């Protein structure tokens, strides 16, 4: 089985800090692959490099059989690789519906249409409504995104990432700042997505990680110290010491 995403020797240094020290990672088609590790382990930097925002110093990134390490962010999105952000990242002045309409119009590939009104475009509106409905946000379509509750904003962000038509989602702490009920709701949403696409999940919420992940990779100081099924990871003494143990103690 070849991996949908195949990372080899990914290296990134910020001054004296080794954020990614020769990272190897395989994410297989259809799985939820969790990337965990203590703060400062280099998880977000890894996501940034996979998404194309940060240029790695060395290493290769193959996605869907193609080397993408040199491509800018928008080209990777077009291939089906999209990220979400740790800090909620939406378009605050636009309504929820407009946020989604924007994603669909970019996906259709005509950002350079100058004259026809976009907001009145019924086709775009319908697609955007479908996307919102998928995450239960349809009732909130006409609310400016900045006025949505935090949990709704996180869902909106996820809806936007999904609407790009992604094959692989890079989710950077989708549960961040969510209350216990909202976290459970988000876990449920991600579980439903599992059949449709592949997810690389960075998350601190261990309940969510072990409930969702098919495989887990543990990162400490930019190095992979373990990778495997959740049960094996839970039992791994090195992991317990470096990460889970530290948290428990």
């Amino acid at each position, binding site marked *: 089985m070849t991996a949908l995403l195949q990372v080899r020797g990914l290296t990134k240094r910020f001054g004296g800090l080794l954020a990614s020290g020769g990272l190897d990672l395989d994410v297989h088609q259809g799985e939820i692959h969790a990337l965990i590790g203590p703060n400062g382990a280099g998880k977000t930097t890894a996501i940034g490099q996979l998404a194309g925002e940060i240029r790695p110093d060395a290493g290769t990134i193959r996605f869907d059989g193609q080397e993408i390490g040199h491509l800018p962010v*928008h080209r990777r*999105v077009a291939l089906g690789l999209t990220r979400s952000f740790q800090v909620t*990242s939406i*378009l605050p002045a*636009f309504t929820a519906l407009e946020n989604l309409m924007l*994603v669909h119009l*970019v996906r259709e590939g005509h*950002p350079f249409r*100058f*004259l026809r009104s976009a907001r009145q475009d019924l086709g775009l509106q319908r697609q955007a409504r479908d996307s919102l409905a998928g995450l239960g946000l349809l009732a909130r379509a006409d609310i400016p995104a900045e006025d949505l509750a935090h949990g709704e904003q996180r869902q909106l962000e996820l809806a936007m990432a999904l609407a790009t038509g992604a094959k692989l989602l890079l989710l950077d702490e989708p549960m961040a700042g969510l209350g216990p009920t909202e976290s459970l709701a988000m876990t449920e949403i991600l579980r439903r997505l599992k059949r449709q696409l592949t997810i690389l999940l960075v998350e601190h919420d261990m309940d969510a990680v072990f409930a969702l992940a098919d495989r887990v990779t543990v990162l400490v100081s930019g190095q992979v110290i373990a990778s495997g099924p959740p049960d094996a990871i839970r039992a791994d003494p090195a992991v317990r010491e470096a990460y889970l143990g530290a948290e428990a103690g």
Partner: protein
Amino acid sequence: MADNRRHAAVLGLTFLLLLLLPQLATALSKPDLLTLGSQIAIYAIAAASLDLLIGYAGMSSFGHAGFFGLGGYVVGILAFHAADNSLFLGIVPGLTDAWLVWPIAIAVTALAALAIGALSLRTSGVSFIMMTLAFAEMLYFLFVSLKTYGGDDGLGFRRRNALPWIAPRDDVAFYYVCLAVLAIFLIAMRHLVQSRFGMVLQGLRQNERRMAAIGVAPYRVRLAAFTIASAGAGLAGALNANLLRYVSPDSLHWTMSGDLMVMVVLGGAGSLYGAVLGAAAFVGLQSVLAQWTEHWMIAMGPILVCTVLVARRGIWGLLAGRR
């Protein structure tokens, strides 16, 4: 919906007033009003084009006068060569027909903006402001050094560009031409900001990282916006040269860029139509205050500060309400 009606009312009244300005000038026997009216219409075009950058795209260009002045110099230089039957750079003959000269002015400024924007947009924030300022200053000193075209003193010419059915010396007719160009320009800009392109542009202002993450190439979109806006300034500059039958390096000086920014902020950034009100307020205040003192900016400054503090969305926001 009530807001929409209020919009239409403010917009309708403004244009009605502008339409009747020549009659008003005659009735009050103040012929100067007509020149002021043309000046307002022309500045409104330049300010509206700058509002596309500042208010919609979130790109604070501080070099807009560079393109305004460049458009004017296209008119001036072509008129200069037409007058003495010589060739520009030894190949281009002089021209005086508006239907040729104005599109050329637009094309030349668009090309200049494409080049300047391509470099400036590699930066953002304060660096972008400084880059645009620097390029406009380079244009300024270029025209100061061109002694053939008047250098410091500027370049005058005898006749406005010829338009079909319109007598070149008819000031009222020229005023209506400016007003018509303004109306067409505003309609085009309204369509632009509501188009797919306009939505992407406003998205980039709000959150560039998010836009990249949904598949937008920010650089190309911004460059297109910069080029379109600058071409609008070039058109305004061409009209301005026609109004005054004169161009000078002053029209590309950075203080002119500052004046245009003041108009945008005064009128209300991100409102497009606010540019008309901003230009009217600026030109009106300038002409009133300048009668009292040569240092009219002393009074203009506090007025601007008060407007920004009282009405964060400018005069347009004050009159027409939110958005």
